[in-house]
């Protein structure tokens, strides 16, 4: 029973936060909201029993990635309130078209799915499964894991190259 309450509580906060993230004008506020959003998402993961993922989420997502965002915002200090360019009408039509599209197709998707509730599923998954994750990560998914590491390496190198000052680029 407690779990349902906390879920709905978290869900409502999450919806509000995600809408806010998209609509707020100042980037700093947006990032802050996004950080909170991540926290509450970590909470939902914990609810679902994925503690390890929750913590990882917090450490990496909130701790590192969004800090990067903060950095960029502080460095660039872009003009905060960018006026909306482009004619409103056209944008609104597309806006509504996309959202209606999403809602319509999601409901169609739900019809197709077999109703799943928590009960009829084995519930032992709830406890800590860090051990099993570690096992599976390094046995079944070793190759994707290596590839991910390669991806990160690539990300690092390219990020450095791209964001270097033009003067430095010349030397390279």
């Amino acid at each position: 029973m407690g779990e349902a309450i906390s879920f709905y509580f978290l869900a409502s906060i999450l919806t509000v936060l995600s809408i806010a993230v998209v609509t707020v004008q100042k980037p700093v506020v947006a990032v802050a909201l996004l950080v909170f959003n991540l926290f509450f998402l970590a909470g939902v993961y914990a609810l679902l029993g994925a503690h390890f993922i929750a913590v990882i989420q917090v450490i990496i997502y909130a701790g590192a990635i969004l800090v990067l965002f903060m950095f960029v915002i502080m460095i660039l200090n872009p003009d905060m309130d960018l006026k909306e360019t482009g004619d409103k009408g056209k944008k609104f039509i597309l806006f509504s078209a996309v959202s209606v599209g999403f809602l319509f197709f999601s409901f169609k998707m739900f019809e197709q799915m077999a109703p799943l509730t928590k009960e009829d599923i084995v519930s032992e998954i709830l406890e800590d499964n860090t051990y099993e994750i570690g096992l599976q990560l390094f046995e079944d998914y070793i190759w994707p894991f290596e590839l991910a590491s390669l991806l990160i390496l690539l990300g690092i190198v390219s990020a450095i190259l791209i964001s270097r000052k033009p003067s430095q680029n010349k030397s390279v």
Partner: protein
Amino acid sequence: MNWLEMTLCFPLLGAILNGLILRSESKTLAQIVSVTACFLAFFSALFLSYDVLTHHEGLKVYHLASWIEAGSLSVPFSFLIDPLSSLMLLIITGIGSLIHIYAGGYMSHEKTTYRFFAYLNLFVFMMLLLVTGENFLIMFIGWEGVGLCSYLLISYWFEEDKNAKAGMKAFLVNRIGDIGFLFAVFLTFKQFGTLSFLDLKNILLNSHTLTQEMQNSIALICLLMLVAACGKSAQLPLYVWLPDAMAGPTPVSALIHAATMVTAGVYMMTRLSFFYFLAPQIMTVVAVLGCLTAFFAATIALVQNDIKKVLAYSTVSQLGYMVMGCGVGGFGAGVFHLLTHACFKALLFLGAGSVIFAMHHKQDMMEMGGLKKYLPKTHAVFLLGVLAIIGVPGFSGFFSKDEILWKAFNYPVIGPYLWAFGTLTAGCTAFYMLRLYTLTFCGENRSDHHTKKHIEETPVIMWGPLAVLAFLSVFIGFVGVPAVIGDLVGIPNFFEHYLEPVIKMPHAAEENWHFLRDHHSHALEWTLMGTSTSFVLLGALLGFNFYKRGPKGISLILKKKFSRTHKFLTNKYYVDEFYENIFVTPLQEMSQFLWKIFDLIFINGFINGVGRGLMISSALSSWKNSGGLQTYAVFFVLGCLVFLGFFLK
């Protein structure tokens, strides 16, 4: 080199020498070359005909080379010399050389005359080809070649647009006739498989029964050849080009449009007489056509003011006589009239030429008059010519015309009517010839002061040929004195049996041409001859009196009374305008339409349309490719949604 090759090569050589190689500035050199070429041709023609008629019993075929060999068709370069063609050879080369001499004088005002003489020689060569050709195609080469030369000669003075137009008109109208000729050739080849006259003659002469299909095709062939003849010999429907052909220099008119070319039709008919005998209905058509043309042209000639136009229409009407002669079965009479006509018409034309030469190229009779004093020699010769043409007994015209009228009278059904019209035309001929004579030579001189001062007698070089022609036109008649008179005077009708071997009656056509041989009473012949001569004398008197004192006098009164008919006649029955509106202008509009609307707009439009259509459709598909990041994203998402929708259904 036998005689035939010589006769053919000399004019050709003359033409090439003058036209392409020499192109000399001096007029005399050009004239000498062409005259010698023509005389040499005449002498070789003489020897040729003498040799053929005496040694080869009147028929010899020269086979030079093979021209076209294609499938079953084989057309050799072969020439047929028989009494008819030798006669024509002599006429062409004889009168031709006389005219060549005359032309030297006439063209003395021109700067360079090599071109003129080259064309004249070329014309003679082509005419020789026409008359000596052994099969249809060689004759056709001559046929079209002659058309070409008349085109070139008529538009000799091409500076004026009028001459160029006249030349083109002549060539095109001839071309219409030639198409008839072509169809006839196709039909004969389809029907008989060969095009040479001798083979056709053998097939037709001794074929006793003719199948119905053969009958029809022969009739059709004859009709088509008639069309060709009309085109070439300026008969009724296609005569319009001859009056305009007068735009060329007078020697040209004399040689081509009087003596030789126009007679080609008659020659062709006599050559194909065995065809025509087998198609009696066509013969009646020919006869009626000839008679109509004769009468029709004579009436127009009554009111013409241009001296050459009058002579032109008189040629058309005399040709009508010849065609009528052939039509009624009297091919011999036709050819005889052809012979006499060649002489006196050439004489008349050259006479008129010397008058025009004297009057510095003015041709309107109204400005002449009283030239008797100024040009005594031309006047005398001209008078002889006039007497010959109107058919005063004793002169050549009388014998040949009378022969035709007699043959026409004996024609079974419509004979007398033909005769009546014939005599009436003879009267008209007398009237307008005398009118011509009196307007130019009698009465006082109406030309303006300037020309009057300069009129002097033509030089000997022009007068000489006139004299010879005058002699010929007077005495040539005695060659074919009709039996009736011949028995009295004792001169045998030499001409009659001269052409006998050429004009044979095929067996199949025996029964419906019997009337040619049965005997007629002399009395009838005498009476006919009497009436026609009286008509002639009446016409002559009227003509002389009306115009004795120039264009005023009685003729004015008549003109006013019959003013409408007079105007009608002067405008040549509006035939030219008729042709113009019926054929030429609509054709012009149609082709304009075809080109402008049909071709440019319809077909081009279609093709360019396809091209433009593609362009538009491609533009549509690229919409507002703004490059905006987010527009791409939106379409991307919409695309996914659509795909999703489709996929999930």
